[in-house]
Structure formats: structure tokens, C-alpha cells
């Protein structure tokens, strides 16, 4: 009852919902650079464009009451989990209506209502938190799962291995999803990891390692769905490597000269959104006009989110001192 249906069984409405989520994320992310140069937002800005199929495939394969947690490239993750774009944009604007009340910013989005448990800025630092959440689920005998997303770079941190070991040892209901976009800032995977096939890294902990095409939302969906089933059955963690690509630099300030034009072009051709759209049409699942309508609606939704962020109030000066402790 808890399990999502197999990818091949998904109906047009469900498939369209996935398409919509990916378009929403892309529209959101592509609106950011201009706003950043207008200084509406500050700090670091790591965009998710290109990786949408991973976040959306994950979120659609689990339930509202399941948890998601990620690193600092998480705008797309929190949107996929169901937070409306308004409060996410407001967070980037540093407004009091933002998901973290203007205190977190781009890297630190949080929304307990949809069980998005945060974006974290220290590479690898959030992996043990996911294990802890899985531990709590088990402790409380619930049938929820946690999906923890992180980059290829994080798999080289000691804490990655500590988390993998404990997750397997305590058989916690956690699904690890490595978004392998082939680079950690300017360093290619093969220059930082002795093992280039990152899915193999879980074998030392006897945790299944699965490699999927991260540019295909249904492939990600299916892999996560199966992993969540295992987790809920008490069979422990799964580790999924989703091969993907970020279409922009590491962050807004990165010119990204370490990647060849040829490589970028090849990956652009594998853009998860238009390809999925074309597939939906060619399979007769939807009409081309359905997609166009969604594109237009999502564009308007993001414009509305920007208006919301723009018109929202800033935190007050007194907010500097609030929420350091629960009781002041």
C-alpha cells in the first residue's frame, strides 16, 4: 500500500506531474542569475539546471511523509518535495517569509511541512544526519524512509564511509543518492576518487550499489522506488549513483572553463526535460499542447514567486537574536 507503482504503470497525469516539476525547477533556476546580478540575492548560488530528473525522480518515488535531505544545490530538491516556489524564492531574497526566515539563504533551505530536512554547506556533513533520521524512524517503528542526496565529491569524505557503515550496521531505512555530475567544483571525479564507478563504493558495507541514468526521470524514479521498498521492509539502505550533469558552473561565480564545449554540448542534448516531453508525446501519453500549457503555467508561477519575494518584508533587527535557542 505504501509503495509507489512501477514506472511502467504510471498514468498520464502522473507523468505530466513529473514533467511539470522539472519545468518548475528549470524556470526557477534560470530566473536566478538575473536576480542575482540585480543584487536581489547574495552569497553563493549553486543552480540545479540539468539535474532536475534526479530530484524529481526521487521525490515522486516516495511520499509526503518521507524525508528528503540534501547539500547546498537544493533549490530543486525542496521544490520537488512540494514547497511552493514563493517561500523558496523569498529565502533567496533573504525575506522573513522565506523557508528559513531569511537566515539560511540559497544553501540552507528547510521545510518541515513537506519533510525537506535541509540543505547543508559542508560537503558530506549531512550524511550522518540522514542516518540519524532513519534511526529515529526505526526507533519509533514507523514505515517512513529518508532519501539523502549528495554530490560525487562527498563520496571522498570520511563521513561518507562512516554514514554508509552505520546505515548498514543498524539497517536504517535510508536511500543514499549520489548525484554524480562528474565534477566537484573544477575537479573531475577521476582526479579525486580512486574508484571512478562511484556506485561500487557501497560494496564494502554490503549495501547494494545501483547505477542509473540521472537524465531520465523514470529511471531514477524506479531505482528509488525499489530502494524505498527495501528500506520499508527492514532490509536496510541502498546506494544509488545517478549520472547527471550541471548545465551551469559550480556556482554563479564559476566560469567553468575546465569543461570542454564538446562535453557541455553532448550533455545538453541529453537535457532531461525536452527529452522526457518528446517521449511523452511520442508514446501518445500526452499532446504537445499539454506540455506547452504546463510550460506557460510554470513560467507564470515563477513570476508570481518573484513578486511574492519582492513584496515580502525583511526580518526585523530583533531577529538577529531569535532562534539561537528555543528558550531565550
Amino acid at each position: 500500500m505504501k509503495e509507489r507503482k512501477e514506472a511502467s504503470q504510471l498514468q498520464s497525469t502522473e507523468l505530466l506531474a513529473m514533467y511539470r516539476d522539472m519545468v518548475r525547477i528549470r524556470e526557477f533556476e534560470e530566473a536566478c542569475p538575473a536576480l542575482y546580478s540585480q543584487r536581489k540575492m547574495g552569497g553563493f548560488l549553486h543552480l540545479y539546471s540539468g539535474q532536475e530528473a534526479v530530484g524529481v525522480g526521487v521525490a515522486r518515488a516516495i511520499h509526503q511523509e518521507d524525508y528528503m535531505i540534501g547539500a547546498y544545490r537544493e533549490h530543486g530538491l525542496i521544490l520537488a518535495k512540494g514547497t511552493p516556489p514563493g517561500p523558496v524564492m523569498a529565502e533567496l531574497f533573504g525575506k522573513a517569509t522565506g523557508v528559513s526566515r531569511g537566515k539560511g539563504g540559497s544553501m540552507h533551505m528547510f521545510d518541515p511541512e513537506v519533510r525537506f530536512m535541509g540543505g547543508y554547506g559542508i560537503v558530506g556533513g549531512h550524511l550522518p544526519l540522514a542516518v540519524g533520521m532513519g534511526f529515529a524512524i526505526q526507533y519509533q517503528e514507523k514505515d517512513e524512509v529518508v532519501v539523502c542526496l549528495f554530490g560525487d565529491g562527498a563520496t571522498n569524505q570520511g563521513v561518507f564511509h562512516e554514514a554508509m557503515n552505520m546505515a548498514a550496521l543498524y539497517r536504517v531505512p535510508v536511500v543514499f543518492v549520489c548525484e554524480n555530475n562528474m565534477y566537484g567544483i573544477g575537479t573531475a571525479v577521476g582526479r579525486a576518487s580512486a574508484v571512478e564507478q562511484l556506485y561500487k563504493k557501497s560494496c564494502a558495507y554490503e549495501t547494494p550499489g545501483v547505477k542509473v541514468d540521472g537524465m531520465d526521470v523514470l529511471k531514477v524514479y524506479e531505482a528509488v522506488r525499489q530502494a524505498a521498498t527495501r528500506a520499508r521492509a527492514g532490509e536496510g539502505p541502498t546506494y544509488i549513483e545517478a549520472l547527471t550533469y550541471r548545465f551551469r558552473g559550480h556556482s554563479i561565480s564559476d566560469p567553468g572553463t575546465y569543461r570542454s564545449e564538446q562535453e557541455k554540448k553532448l550533455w545538453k542534448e541529453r537535457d532531461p526535460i525536452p527529452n522526457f516531453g518528446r517521449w511523452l508525446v511520442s508514446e501518445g501519453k500526452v499532446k504537445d499542447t499539454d506540455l506547452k500549457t504546463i510550460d506557460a503555467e510554470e513560467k507564470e508561477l515563477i513570476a508570481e514567486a518573484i513578486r511574492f519575494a519582492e513584496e515580502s518584508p525583511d526580518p526585523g533587527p530583533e531577529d538577529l537574536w531569535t532562534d539561537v535557542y528555543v528558550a531565550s
Partner: protein
Amino acid sequence: MPLITCRDAINQALQEEMERDPNVFILGEDVALYEGSFKVTKGLLAKFGEKRVIDTPIAEAGFTGLGCGAAMVGLRPIVELMTVNFGIVALDQIMNNVAVIRYMFGGRVKVPLTIRSPGGAGNQLGAQHSHSIEAMLMHCPGLRVVVPSVPADAKGLLKSAIRSDDPVFFVEHEGLYGVKGEVPEGDYTIPLGVADVKRPGKDVTLICLSKMVYVCLEAAEKLAEEGINAEVLDLRGLNPLDLPAILDSVTKTGRAVTVEECWLTGGWGGEIAALIMEHAFAALAAPVLRVASADVPMPYNKALEDAAIPDVARVMARVREVMRY
């Protein structure tokens, strides 16, 4: 003297020391191909090659430990931690190995390791990317802590750090890399543990380092218009600490304000205040006052962030307060 940035001054020091001593090499995240996330290591890979300019995985504890081990058996590694925030991942290596090994083994080994890393706040980077850890580092016996402000100091101090037989944590500031200053040409060093009067004055001593030196200099200029003549003492490091210079200045002025970017509670200002009290109580006309970052995790919102970090106005207010005694 040529006018160059802190970034270039540090780069020069690295190049000159690598030329001077083949045992000096540099390792860290994105230091080689990418030439550093702040471009401090620009040109090093081209000049010295992959053997001596090494990109590491994102594994701060691991490669800091690697640097420590290499130093124990004869090399002079320079570990670049991309920022001090990630250096916190390596604190175990720093506190349990780097700082204590020589003492723990009865002086039978030395650890000539230099760790370079920028810290500081001010770019809306939020709670996990805005740390200042000088005070925490100062807390560790066995570890030298060097913190330059101007380009000339950065170059001369880094050269001394690299040549030092003790482990040195060399704290740079993200907000200072683009700041220019006159830097002497060629080889020169500045000894560790020697403070520098950046502006002489007679009424009050502003004790500071790193980016706060600039804040204090600006505050001092404005205070001069109010008839308050402030001395700006740049500590240039916390270990060795130039206590004589602090005492000299305070004995002259009778008043002191410490200005730092670390949190107020447990910041280094409290330590300096205690030392002044212990050694020069009779010279004091007023209690030592402190300016430091607000005791909160750094907020993202610009106005809140500004309110959390010491600025010229807050330094001036504190000075006026200390002058009222």
C-alpha cells in the same frame, strides 16, 4: 615599491619558497588545475608541476593528516584548506596530531607544516561558511597562529611560516584577497610574533588583526575628528603573541579596545584583556572593552549579517565608551 594585492603577495611567497626549497609542496582542493578557488595558487601547477602542486579529494581530515605525516619525515608541506569552515572538518587532525605530536613524543620529532586557509564573514554566506576560528586555534598549545592584514605582511609572514619548524596555521581573509598594498620586491621575511603599529596614537589602543585592522584604521581616522587619537596595533598573529607590544602601547595610552571577527564569547579579545589586566593593571585608566561578532550563527540576510559583524560605527561607539572613564 610595487602595489599588489594580498592574493598576489601570498602567491609570490608560495612561489619563492617553492623555488628556494624542493621539500616545499602544496596540496588542497582545487589548488592545481583550477588554481585555487580564490586563485591564490595561480600559475603554480604550470611552474612546479603535478608532483609539487596537488589536487586532493574533498577530504580535509585526510589530507591535513597526510601533510602532518609528510612533515614528520622531512617534507615541508603547505596544506591549503579551501576555507576555515572546511578546516573544521580537519580539527581532529589539527588538535590531536599537528599541534601535540612534538610535545607528546618528547621533542623527538618536529612538524614543519603550514596550513593556509581563508576565513571571515561578510558575503552573505550564512552560518556554515562565515566562521572565524583564530580564537579556537589560539587555544591549542603547540600550534602557531599567524593572521596577516596587509599584503606586505602576508608575504613576509607566510615565508616565515613555511620556514618555521613548528606547525603554523596561517589565517587569510576572504575579504582581503583583492586589497592592495605596497610590497617590497624580492626575498624578505617578517618574524612570527611581532605586532605592528599600523597607526600611532596616544589616547586609546585598538588591538586587532586581519580585516579588522582596516575597520580600526577607518574608525581611528573618524575618531581623530572628534579629538580622540587612537593607536591601531595589528597583532599579525596570536601565537606567538607579542605581549610586550601590547603592554607598551597600553601603558602609553591607558585604554584598550580589542576588535575581532570571532564570536564575543570565548573570543581572543577576552584573553588579551586578561593579559593586560594581569600585567598592566596599574596603567589602565579604564576597563579593557571588546568588540566582536554577535554570539549568533551567521545569518544570511544582509542587514542581519551587517548587524552581526563589527563595523566602524561599533568600534567608534566602544572607543567613546572607554574614553568616558
